């Protein structure tokens, strides 16, 4: 019985046999593209898991890697290398898109850490972010009533300046809450980056809750905006 296929060998470049990390996109020695990588987004950029990332240097690294990995550079390479370049560039692009945005970065990191975030499964309908946060129950209930009334008015072609003013004020209030969530997320993120595993656990759970709250608030602000834009038109 052959065991050769099950032996795990240390990763090596297929072209020059230089030792590689398992997840390398390119060989640092001979620059050849490597088979489709299974690196996570932080590994793609050679970064530790962290929520504080400097976007300017991330962009520089993205451009540097793009120049070497992009399928345009492999138009005359073997079909195998073309396929690897395609897969690894897609990974690089996905990684850059996720990490450059602080919210997506946080969601991604928390998922890597094993937390369930938001709409894990597409189309499953109501998830945590569809439930109003407990402390806002009453306010949200009131706002939804006003939104409904405003929509009815719009259907009937009626105008209610007082209601419109209320909604505009509500929008400002919820936008303020949204900004507060972003502030909290960023300080919890700093705690996570600096903390030991116990602190990280707590910060991660707090951030997951904050993300749900954020998604809920964002949808709410979007709904109010829709109604107010229709009113202005």
């Amino acid at each position, binding site marked *: 019985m052959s065991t050769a296929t099950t032996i795990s060998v240390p990763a090596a470049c297929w072209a020059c046999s230089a030792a590689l990390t398992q997840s390398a996109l390119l060989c640092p020695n001979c620059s050849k593209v490597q088979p489709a990588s299974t690196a996570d987004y932080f590994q793609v950029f050679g970064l530790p898991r962290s929520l504080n990332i400097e976007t300017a240097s991330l962009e520089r690294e993205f451009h540097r890697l*793009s120049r070497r990995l*992009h399928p345009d550079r492999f138009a*005359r390479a073997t079909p195998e290398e073309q396929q690897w370049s395609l897969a690894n560039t*897609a990974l690089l*692009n*996905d990684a850059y*898109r996720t990490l450059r945005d602080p919210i997506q970065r946080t969601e991604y990191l928390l998922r890597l850490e094993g937390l369930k975030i938001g709409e894990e499964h*597409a189309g499953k309908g109501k998830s945590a972010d569809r439930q109003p946060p407990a402390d806002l129950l009453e306010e949200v209930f009131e706002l939804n009533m006003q939104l409904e009334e405003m929509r009815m008015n719009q259907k009937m072609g009626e105008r209610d300046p007082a209601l419109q003013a209320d909604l505009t004020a509500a929008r400002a209030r919820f936008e303020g809450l949204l900004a507060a969530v972003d502030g909290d997320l960023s300080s919890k993120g700093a705690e996570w980056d600096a903390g030991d595993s116990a602190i990280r656990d707590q910060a991660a759970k707090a951030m997951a809750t904050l993300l749900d709250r954020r998604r809920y608030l964002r949808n709410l602000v979007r709904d109010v905006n829709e109604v107010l834009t229709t009113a202005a038109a």
Partner: protein
Amino acid sequence: MPEERIVGIDLGTTNSLVAYMEGSQPVVIPGVDGSNLVPSIVALDIVDPNAESSARPTVTVGNSARRALIENPERAVYSVKRLMGRGLEDIQDELKLFPFQLADDIQPGEVLRIRLGDKHFTPSEISAYILRQLKRNAERYFGAPVTKAVITVPAYFNDAQRQATRDAGRMAGLDVLRLVNEPTAAALAYGLDRAKEGIIAVYDLGGGTFDISILKLNDGIFEVIATNGDTHLGGDDIDNLLLAVALDEIRNEHNVDLRQQPDAIQALRKAVIEAKIRLSTEPVAKLDIELPSNGGPDGDRYQREIPREVYEQLIQPVLARTAGPCRQAMADAGITPDQIEELVLVGGSTRIPAVRTLVDEIFQLSVRGKKPHTELNPDEVVALGAAVQASILAGSSTTTDELLLLDVTPLSLGIEALGGVVARIIQRNSTIPASATEHFTTGVDGQTNVAIHVLQGERELASDCRSLARFDLKGIPPMTAGLPRIEVKFLIDANGILQVTAREQRSGLEAQIEVKPTYGLTDEQVETMILDSFDHAETDFEARQLIEARLDADTILAAVEKAPASPAWKLLGEDEKANIEAVRLQLTAIKTSDNLQAIRAATTDLDHATRNFAEKMMEAAVSGAMRGKTMQTASDDLGEAVNAPHPFAPAEFK
């Protein structure tokens, strides 16, 4: 043997071009008639009924097909790009506005077939004829085979439209190394000679499509940050508007309804297009057209002055449709107009002064002391950019060594979830290649198939998005419902085309995927539509060149032999007639020889000698069409009425 050249092709709605990188500069390759633009018109040749029946019908492409458009509109087609990758239900608006003649038996969900004479062609086949002409022009120019190309597409083209374009390339015997977005190509052409930094926008209003792209330039990297557009908006729409107005006025004032006469409509279209072009430089344009004598007094004329203000008012609603996509693109890019440092104008329709005024407003150019870039010919700049991209892929030029294009997908990709809603898996404006992984399972015990519906678009409901493909994951090992875990990887490649792979994770089995593109051709279908099998054989390139040169010679000789019968012949001077006869004899004599260069030279000579005559004949054809004579002759020949039930929509005035 030197490395084969890769050409860049702009396959346009109105005109198509081929270009390549000559040293450090991209240049357009002219056709035999010396023109850089090949009009995207394809006409099925009239076959001599006495000739031996040949397997494949022959066609005429470009300027020489123009005449057929007026004389035999039922055998010619233009603006076919509007039909690429589309289904019957997508194009109801186009059918009202364009004289496309479709096969009668097309089912919903089927690839369209266009009727030319008694033959049917898919839009990809028609485009393949145009591409083959460009390929031949390039081969003639290089004296060597050309089999590799970069082809441009509107940035806002969806997956099916891109696939149809790639299929057309394959049918024409071209290996399409990359599809490049037109505005991005234009940016490449402009960015070549300047080491630019900062944010630029490309506003591309062509014959049939509108694109806006916003790019960030940084040390040779052209990174698209947002793109938007409308694949059914362009100069054609302005033509249709002017045409509809003219048709209404002719009906109301002269009591003549030309709507049922395709040839008269083509002639009128030609006249309004000329008026449109004049109005870009003149304050007023005149239409003066002789009307058919039937129904009205003889020699009745439609005479109309169009002042530019009236024209601009008329086309304002068309132009205004470009503003929304521009604002959306800026919003998606997270920028305001004042952050745009340079603006590039692309496409023939950007010559219209009202377009420039609108662009100036949207991007606040003149208030910031800026002017749009128009240095490169707006008809050629896309092809030039395609040539630059070709050079990047070839890796053969130091000029393009440091350049890299990072483009985006214009439309979000989603899958249909429960309740018919779309779950987005790749957002629009994501840099491509881009990928997303989704997991699926079964709902019934022992289920071995899972159907997946992939869509493209920004709407919430699947029924409002563009159906891209339906996949069947097959060969799932029978298990309890919900137990299989099928990982499906969606990958949009650098051409903006979707690839899908799937794996059942519990068994480790690669699931089979059967991709049924919603409006696409299967590989097998494409194989059967490849235009010339000998296009692949590079060995008999010389022989093919000779055959083609003789065919070109025959075409022009046949036309010239019929010349004395034309009324236009009488308008020529004796010297001119004698000269044509001398050149004709020269070509007849040389055509059977094996001297390729001599045959070509003699063909070009005859083309030049008869140019004045050809123009006179065109004029005659136009006025003939207006009098309804050619029309009658054409129907007699066909033995059936030419069928164009609703060629044009009524004009809408607000």
